[in-house]
């Protein structure tokens, strides 16, 4: 027991809990100031996602995207590569998988398989340019990936507006993908699960990608912690000079870290089209790539932590939606809370700084009591 309490993992968990509580309390203070029904609003935020089955479904769907984006980021951040092109990879993955599901005339099973492969492949390929530029020319991957995000968004917009969007459509979107070409419900079609399956399918559209997400988490964990490539990747991240002199092929590791991360970003895009929206629409990703960064950071870039932080983040987002619909507090409150949480989590020296202040205070008060005792020996 003592061992668990003093372990690093427990301390980090404790830190997340404390920081999250601090963020929520700050959020509550803001709510108190602006809202007429602060208690109601917070109740909706904290319990809303669980109140109805369809809301649970929304929460899970949202979390799936976040977890996949978080996994993608965790790979590059473990390699200390500031690659933030997840947004671009995601939207291209969504585009490609949508196009395959809509237009390639092959049977459903193969079509979905091809949609997945295409989405993941385009995510992989989209990272090749920044990765090569970083490895061979030392061009900042932060800037190139940021630029390519916008390029990807423009490519997406170009194809959507000029080729995919039906004429006289009211929204900038494609046709809806027919149900047989989407993913089906995550509850298997077995006789004794029939009633549960029908209940879930009626209210939610959580698909079997759930299992793929679980598999992805395990794969990324094994890749990072149980393979020599993962060891090289983490060594490069924690100590690049040691990695270089230790004979690690830095260039190869760099390129692979970014491109492999792209596979999961592409997968997140596939989920957006075939799992959530069921069509290609404008602004599908809307900052989800950046939210992946927060999810990964909250989990200290540990792939096994990502599902939990992803579910947590998704819960807050889903709760915020409920709060906005039922009370007078807008959902942006959650962005504020998340920003505060992210700042506090990433502040490495914040805790030592606070401890130092407390220690100094204690010392001062100790000195004072000593002086008091010397000066007035009769008191107590």
């Amino acid at each position, binding site marked *: 027991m003592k061992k668990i309490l003093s372990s690093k993992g427990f301390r980090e968990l404790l830190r997340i809990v404390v920081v999250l509580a601090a963020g929520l309390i700050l959020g509550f203070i803001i709510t108190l100031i*602006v809202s007429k029904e602060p208690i109601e609003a917070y109740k909706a935020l904290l319990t809303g996602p669980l109140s109805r089955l369809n809301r649970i479904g929304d929460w899970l769907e949202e979390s799936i995207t976040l977890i996949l984006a978080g996994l993608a980021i965790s790979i590059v951040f473990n390699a200390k590569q500031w690659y933030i092109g997840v947004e671009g990879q995601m939207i291209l993955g969504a585009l490609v998988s949508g196009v395959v599901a809509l237009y390639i005339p092959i049977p459903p099973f193969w079509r979905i398989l091809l949609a997945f492969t295409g989405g993941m492949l385009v995510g992989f390929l989209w990272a090749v340019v920044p990765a090569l530029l970083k490895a061979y020319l*030392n*061009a900042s991957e932060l800037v190139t990936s940021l630029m390519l995000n916008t390029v990807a968004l423009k490519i997406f917009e170009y194809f959507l507006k000029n080729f995919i969007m039906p004429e006289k459509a009211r929204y900038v979107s494609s046709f809806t993908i027919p149900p047989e070409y989407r993913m089906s419900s995550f509850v298997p079609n077995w006789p004794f699960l029939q009633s549960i399956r029908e209940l879930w399918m009626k209210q939610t559209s959580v698909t079997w990608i759930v299992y793929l997400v679980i598999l992805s988490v395990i794969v990324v964990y094994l890749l990072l912690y149980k393979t020599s490539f993962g060891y090289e990747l983490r060594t490069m991240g924690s100590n690049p000079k040691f990695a270089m002199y230790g004979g690690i092929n830095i260039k190869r590791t760099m390129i692979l870290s970014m491109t492999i991360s792209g596979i999961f970003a592409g997968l997140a895009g596939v989920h957006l089209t075939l799992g959530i929206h069921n069509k290609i629409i404008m602004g599908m990703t809307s900052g989800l790539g950046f939210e992946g960064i927060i999810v990964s950071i909250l989990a200290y870039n540990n792939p096994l932590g990502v599902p939990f932080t992803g579910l947590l983040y998704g819960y807050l987002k889903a709760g915020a939606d409920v709060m906005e619909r039922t009370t007078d507090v807008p959902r942006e*409150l959650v962005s504020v809370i998340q920003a505060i949480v992210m700042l506090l989590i990433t502040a490495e*020296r914040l805790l030592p700084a606070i401890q130092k202040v407390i220690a100094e205070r204690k010392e001062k008060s100790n000195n004072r009591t000593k002086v008091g005792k010397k000066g007035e020996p009769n008191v107590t």
Partner: protein
Amino acid sequence: MSLETVLHSIFSAFFIASVIRISTPIIFPALGGLVAIQAGVSNMALEGIMNAAAFTGVIISAYTGNVWLAVLCGVLVGILIASLLALFHLRFGTDVILAGLALNLFCSGITVFLLYVLTGDKGNSATLASLTVPNVKIPWIHNIPFIGELLSGHPVFTYLAFFLVLVIYVFLYRTRFGTHLRAVGENPEAAKSLGIDVNFVRLIALIISGSLAALGGMTLSMAYLPLFQKEMASGRGWIGIAAVHLGARKPLGVLLAAILFGLADALANQVGSLKIPSQLVQMIPYVAVVIALVVYAIQQRRAILERVKKYQQTMKEQYSPRTQ
């Protein structure tokens, strides 16, 4: 036919004026990004600062009726957020990129949140009677046909932006503090050993950077249109960072890069009548940044190789007589 009309419209004063108009809110954050990067910290919060300042300007001007007070408050908000970035990065050891991203999230959240609380609308501030900064009519030039249309009648911010390019150049290359700032960016350890307070210099750099980005934000909400919209900066903060890299981290280069971004945007609006898709035109500057980075990297490498060669040669010249 249509190409002709497009070409005609491109070479009109109106088009050039629109390029200037679109470039202005890019020049400010680009300069801000430049000052920060020259000091060795990248200010990733430019986007958020622009949103926050644009919002503050609109709100203060709507509630007090005083434009200049609003501008002042907007700049102060920019400074405040930049100081927060500095506090977390320099004092609490947060990675500067992550802190910047978190602050962006904070700003885009809090502006929409407060907008909704104050106006009941989440999209824009149309219900508020906010003000714009005055336009400047340059006395003599205003009446000259082509040039007058081009150079005169822009909002104060536009002239300020171009003027600040000069100011930043002088600041960075002709003042003592600017030299310190560049030294800190070039080699913080060396600067420290010479007695320069690295953290202080970076704090000041971030504050300057924040106030510049704030001016950029207010150009959006208080110059041509008295209106705040959700996520008003819409990527201009990032474009500013891109312009810094495209402009080879020099004030004039950054200015030209910002104008290139403005030009591409203005062109994209114009080519609508042609068969060229506007998205492809809008893409050009982003691709250009990537290419510029590549060129920059190749140049750097070549410079290093030459230096090594020179070094080897001098070594040979120095040591060959002795060995012979």
